């Protein structure tokens, strides 16, 4: 059983533990700031020209639309149409519908890898919640028993699922991407590095679970120490696990992984954005603003420095 108490480590060990706490704080803050910045960027995107696409009406079973006018009450705007859009969106979120119908092998590894990733996040959340509970109990006698007492079964279950799925899914994706020319050609080294980090994290997590810390209480205690601003000694293996896990978090904003959020904007704010420009509407107001912006395009048929409105009325 894991024993966590006061420090009796070398200076180097202490430095490493402090480093891990700092890295963990940095990783969480970094991912929060990076993703918030991306959300703000998207939310502040200017209005765009209408560029919708009728993706959610694909199947023959659904009745097709009648015709479009920007002004009449549009059948497209009906709640049924909106619902069918939301449904098609959920299908992609929940079971990656397009991948499933297109390439079952790819889907299989992708889905398993995502199960691993999501479980790892929940696993961390459970560990943090347990640690927070311990910390808030104002009990300074930290024992492994107290730390492992609550939610332990869930924690172990999540750890097993995330590590197993992470290893199978990421190895599968890596092999699949390497063995298919059309995927290999377009996959940057960073993606393979991501797979490797995930696989290593999960492997080490598994080894920890099997040999060193079957309840992952060391990880919980690490967070307790973090909340107390008093580093608690962690084993070398756990240190490596924490390091790789945080590295993975820092890595994420550099990948297209945030499409889970941005695609929401892409579908609802672009591809399904059929809001007409009605008099007095927010759309009209937004158009008024952008039409007043000055252009600096410099082709011979464009007068640089004109506003969009002036350019639109310019004839020659």
């Amino acid at each position, binding site marked *: 059983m894991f024993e966590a108490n006061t420090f009796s480590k070398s200076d180097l060990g202490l430095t490493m533990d402090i480093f891990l706490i700092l890295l963990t704080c940095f990783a969480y803050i970094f991912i929060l700031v990076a993703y918030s910045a991306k959300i703000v960027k998207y939310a502040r995107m200017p209005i765009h020209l209408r560029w919708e696409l009728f993706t959610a009406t694909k199947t023959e079973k659904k009745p097709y639309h009648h015709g479009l006018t920007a002004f009449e009450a549009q059948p497209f705007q009906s709640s049924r149409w909106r619902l069918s859009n939301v449904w098609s969106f959920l299908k992609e979120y929940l079971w990656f519908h397009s991948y499933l119908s297109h390439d079952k092998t790819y889907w299989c590894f992708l889905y398993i890898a995502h199960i691993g990733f999501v479980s790892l996040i929940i696993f961390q959340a459970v560990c943090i919640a347990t640690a927070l509970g311990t910390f808030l109990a104002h009990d300074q006698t930290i024992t492994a028993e107290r730390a492992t007492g609550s939610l332990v079964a869930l924690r172990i279950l999540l750890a097993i699922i995330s590590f197993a799925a992470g290893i199978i899914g990421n190895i599968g994706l890596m092999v699949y991407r390497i063995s298919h020319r059309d995927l290999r050609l377009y996959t940057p080294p960073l993606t393979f590095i991501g797979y490797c980090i995930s696989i290593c994290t999960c492997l080490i997590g598994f080894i920890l679970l099997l040999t060193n810390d079957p309840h992952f209480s060391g990880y919980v205690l690490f967070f307790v120490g973090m909340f107390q601003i008093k580093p608690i000694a962690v084993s070398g293996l756990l240190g490596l696990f924490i390091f790789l896990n945080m590295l993975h978090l820092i890595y994420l904003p550099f990948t297209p992984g945030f499409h889970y959020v941005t695609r929401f904007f892409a579908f609802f704010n672009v591809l399904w954005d059929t809001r007409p420009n009605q008099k007095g509407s927010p759309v009209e107001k937004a158009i008024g603003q952008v039409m007043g912006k000055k252009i600096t395009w410099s*082709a011979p048929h464009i007068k640089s420095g004109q506003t969009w409105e002036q350019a639109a009325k310019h004839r020659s």
Partner: protein
Amino acid sequence: MRIEDISKKSDQIIKIRQSDLLPLPYPYNNPEKDTAMRELSSDQRERYEASLDGVIGVGIQRPSSKAEEELFIHKFLSGLAKLFEKENNWTFLHPLYHSLEYCVKCQICNDSCPAYIASGRKEIYRPTYRPEVLRRIVDKYIKKKNRASLKLTGSDIELNWTLIARLGELAYRCTLCRKCTQACPLGIDNGLISHEIRKVFSQEMGIAPKELHEQGTVQQLKVGSSTGINPRALENIIEFMENDIEEKIGRKIKIPVDKKGAEILLLHNAGEFMSWPENTEAFAIIFDAAGIDWTLSSETVGYDAVNYGVWYDDIQLARVATRQAEIARNLGVKKINVGECGHAHKAMIVVADRVLTGDLNIPRESALPILRDIVVGDKIKLDSSRNNFPITLHDPCNMVRLMGIVEPQREILKKICPQFLEMEPHGVDNYCCGGGSGFAIMQSMNFPDWRSAVSGRIKLKQILEVFQDTISPDVKKYVCAPCSNCKGQIRDLLNYYNVWDECGIFYGGLAELIVNAMIDLEKPFIEWEWH
């Protein structure tokens, strides 16, 4: 080939071989019946960039000096930077940013692309190829990422004249059909990337296919129509149409022009006046019979629905749409209805909705629901047995996938065409005719061959497949294409493969079929004469 090969000097990146192309059904399953694409002359190759695929669509001239070459690169980069500025590109900044940043390169969109599949999956036509090249250029030359970051993100690419010129041509190997966008679970719009590259070339570098720019939007704004028809010529055309109608149906119809306060200003693609006057005549006959209060305009730009700006230049798009709306406003019509022209539908009704403000914001809609109401509502007497021949429907991408107008044309055909057959796939899942985004009117050098042999090949396959049971030329068959550009492309496609003679497959619009079914007509309106 590797992605970065686009900047390596070579004779030609890919060669389009007949044997690589998507096989066609009977009677074109015999390769001898397939038509080989024309080779460029050495003079053409010397003067223009042709090292992408041996095809010239844009016609980018080679630089005559080092300074010219450098200016070309400089202009490209300054235009590319402007694509990411709110002031210069509010029009498409959001989808552009998303499409460049968040594609995970899963390639499931690939099977949707007509050019990629029909070419035998040539790498450069892959829907993700263009965006990947552009992403690398943006990372290295606009975001100026450091060396390590470029290596990690696989963004190292050498920017030179060859790459830019090839990319300019490559932007015109995508029909902007956006079928790949429809397939993408992440909402990535690879068609839009082609559109944005075209914009850099047009709006900053002053380069665009002449059929779209000089003879297209510029001529339309100056003369009145991209066809060159000026208001005087229009008068003659209308007189001709009135006489032709009288000859065909045995009574005179006065085509209303510049009628103040009419309910509808009908905008036709002026190409119809020149190539298929029977379509505009059919509209006049139907509207007259149904008692619709409508008018044409004789004002410059007011009689041509086209707006090629939607394919390559946002400023030109805004200019044409604004002029058309001004004309409608001055006439005091209640609304604008767009005739059988797909891109004009999309440009005027949808895209321009965020350009037209104040009193220019006039209701605009498709003419198809009006035709549907007339036919389905029995406002004119029709006899479906007059259309008793095999008919299939081509879905113009702009009307269908991009606007959701799917049902009116079907309701009409089901009512008046007893042998109506659907192609597969159809509706919002349709394949482009291969002439989308301006291709149908681009006649430069061997480009028309490419759009018949490659981008239109899947459409030909669909047409042949749907008529396989009656493929003999003895049975006359009809491809209904309710879009002027699609009609032009299908005409060229059928011509290229001699399909009229080999299989008896004809093409035409939707309104013609309605008039053909009118019971008070003594002789058939559709004349089955190849043109």
